[in-house]
């Protein structure tokens, strides 16, 4: 089993590691209080005092970005955890049990999939009202069908492998076979999907916050920081650059890691 550490994986790991460090450090310390207003220095350009500059209320952009990392990260993690765990259970059942239950689940699945993700999340937010919980729920529901699809496809192909039949020949019950043999082999594509999902969740949450239906103020998230930067684009263009850069770098890191993970898991599966 050879590990091939391509440079991509390294870059990805570094970026994600950086994000983690920033989040962890942010729990204890930020250069300034992220919500402290300083009306003496509104729209300050980046300098030694404010590495990323300050916004229209004099709030330090770097500190706000660090808090935003924590908030976005927590929401994305919540979405992934909820969607993946529920998706695993439902996908396993659909794929393994089959029959009318599977057909029914697929019709429901396709129905949810018929709504573009963002719109569905938007609509759900409208119904549920703005809060962290409803945001996680809305995004989770939007992504659940894709996970169910991937898990189910994986289970269907594993079911054909002979070791599943061998388990039956040995006398194992269906539940045991599903948990001991099917589930562990169905995990690798789900793990890869989970990393992609983390990236999409960050992106979606940013988009929703940008549109004004995501995380409510004054909590900063990269999305709503970009949104509030719009009126000041000419005067203080750095406000439009820094938060977007954070999103892009995080996404890049997550994607690279996801790719590396997929490459690493792939050759081990076949003979």
């Amino acid at each position, binding site marked *: 089993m050879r590990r091939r550490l391509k440079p991509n994986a390294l870059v990805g790991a570094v970026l994600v590691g950086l994000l983690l460090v920033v989040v962890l450090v942010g729990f204890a310390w930020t250069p300034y209080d992220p919500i402290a207003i300083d009306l003496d220095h509104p729209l300050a350009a980046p300098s030694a005092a404010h590495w990323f500059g300050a916004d229209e209320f004099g709030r330090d952009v770097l500190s706000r970005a660090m808090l935003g990392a924590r908030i976005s990260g927590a929401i994305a993690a919540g979405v992934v955890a909820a969607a993946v765990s529920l998706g695993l259970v439902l996908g396993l059942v659909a794929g393994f049990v089959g029959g009318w239950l599977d057909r029914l689940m697929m019709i429901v699945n396709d129905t949810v999939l018929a709504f573009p993700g963002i719109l569905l999340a938007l609509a759900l937010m409208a119904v549920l009202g703005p809060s962290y919980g409803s945001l996680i729920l809305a995004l989770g529901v939007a992504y659940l069908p894709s996970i169910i699809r991937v898990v189910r496809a994986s289970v269907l192909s594993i079911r054909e492998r002979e070791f599943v039949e061998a*388990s039956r*020949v*040995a*006398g194992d019950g269906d539940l045991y076979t599903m948990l001991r043999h099917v589930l562990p082999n169905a995990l690798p594509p789900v793990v890869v999907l989970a990393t992609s999902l983390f990236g999409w969740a960050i992106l979606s949450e940013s988009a929703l916050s940008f549109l004004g239906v995501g995380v409510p103020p004054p909590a900063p998230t990269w999305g709503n920081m970009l949104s509030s930067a719009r009126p000041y684009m000419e005067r203080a263009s750095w406000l439009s650059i820094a938060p977007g850069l954070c999103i892009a770098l995080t996404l890049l890191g997550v994607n690279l890691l996801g790719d590396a993970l997929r490459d690493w898991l792939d050759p081990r599966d076949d003979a």
Partner: protein
Amino acid sequence: MTGPLLSVRNLRVEATAPDAADRPPLLADLSFDVAPGEFVAIVGESGSGKTMAARSILGLLPPGVRRAGGTIALEGRELTGLSQRDLRSVRGRHVGMVFQEPMVSLNPALTIGKQLAEGLKLHEGLPDGEIRRRCLEMLRRVQITDPGRCLAAYPHEFSGGMRQRIMLASVLLLKPKLLIADEPTTALDTLSQREVMELMVELAAQNGVAILLITHDLGLVARYAQRVVVLEKGVEVESGATRQVLGAPAHPYTRRLVDSLPRRAENRPQRPSAAPILEVRQAAIDYPGKPGLFRRGAPKRVVSGVDLTVGAGEIVAVVGASGSGKTTLGRAVLGLKPLAAGTVTFDGMELARMDKTQARAFRRQAQLVFQDPFSSLDPRVRIGETVGAALRHDPAVSPRERRERVRQALEDVSLGGFEDRLPHQMSGGQRQRVAIARAVVSRPRLVVADEPVSALDMTIQLQVLTLFQRLQAQYGFACLFITHDLGVVEQIADRVYVMSAGAVVEEGATDAVFDDPRHAYTRALLAATPSRMAAAVSVA
């Protein structure tokens, strides 16, 4: 024309990876000739480099592999230094190539007609009408029944055997002087195999085309090749006239290869007549039909009216082509597939009437050895746990005793100490031995073996078969041995049932059936089995 048609000297093929220099090359120092109209075979097992040799000739090596030395001359013209354009004019026109996998050897997105016409258009620039005429004629010569419809159809509408014949047509249309066939019939069943090979040889002889056959099957070599080159791990170990090499092999590896050909068992053990342990009466099995839009599809009957018995301690073979129903029958005997009609009785008790306890006991008494060593072991479970799986359900066996039995079983198959390994760390032959250990650990009274050696290299095949026979003699279990290879049947089985299209067409003691086959299908199968001919040659 004097001189050889193809002349290969000192051919060397390596991987292009930076650490390739430290590892042995894929092919080292291979030299051979092919005379015009001759049939030469390159034979070897997996990893022998034989496919690389074939691909080098036309410069079609896969990415990651390159030719590192040697010369290849076609009719005196050196091929190795040619530009891509010149090489392309050689491909197809002078040298044609037929590949192994009929399922992916034709482009699924284009009609047959378009694919056949491509080469002709390119090399000869003929008008469309003439191209169509030639294609139709060629399809007729490869025995495709409705050539016109075939031209307009897509590859997925044809079976494996037919696709190989279409491939042959496609290649021979260009009238090359040399035909390279890389395992052309490996993916086909026995009868189709024979048809395609005979066709290939006949057409080649008619047009004076030389054939270079790449194969692992000594039987094919013995039957068709005039000369043979034997490769082991990239090195040429022996070459010469087929009769000579196979009849009196000089190199120990060649001798091992020849010995691994299945042959009739010398003394069949006399089985004391005992009550049958397995009785199948008028069994019929259905496959659920393809559901249409609003209705369930009509079920397809894949096994009908089969009667079969296996005595305690007997080895009974069920032989037939793919689609004959033999595998399905094997599953039904173990209660893994329901019967549409008829009964299966094990040790006097009918399967359908067993209650839960009896059914559980039955599971321990009847086990299955699977065909595919790469699919039958859970890649994430350690060998020890895989082997001991059946014992978990035996109330009489404690965990400690289970560990001991697993250890014993692994020792029996010469894999002592492998409990903590994972499947991907083991070779195909080793994994198959694990599958056997798994089947015998619960001391079953019946073992159904479903093509247990078909996926293995020839020398490994012999090892595993011998092991299986030894264990059977030691533990005395009855065995239902399912296979498509008559040679294996002759070696290992006491009695044989021949199946075709879901029904038993002939049965009896092995030697009797082989010496005097009654049914036409049995006769055809016997005639088509290459390994028996090879065994005959080598015994001489």
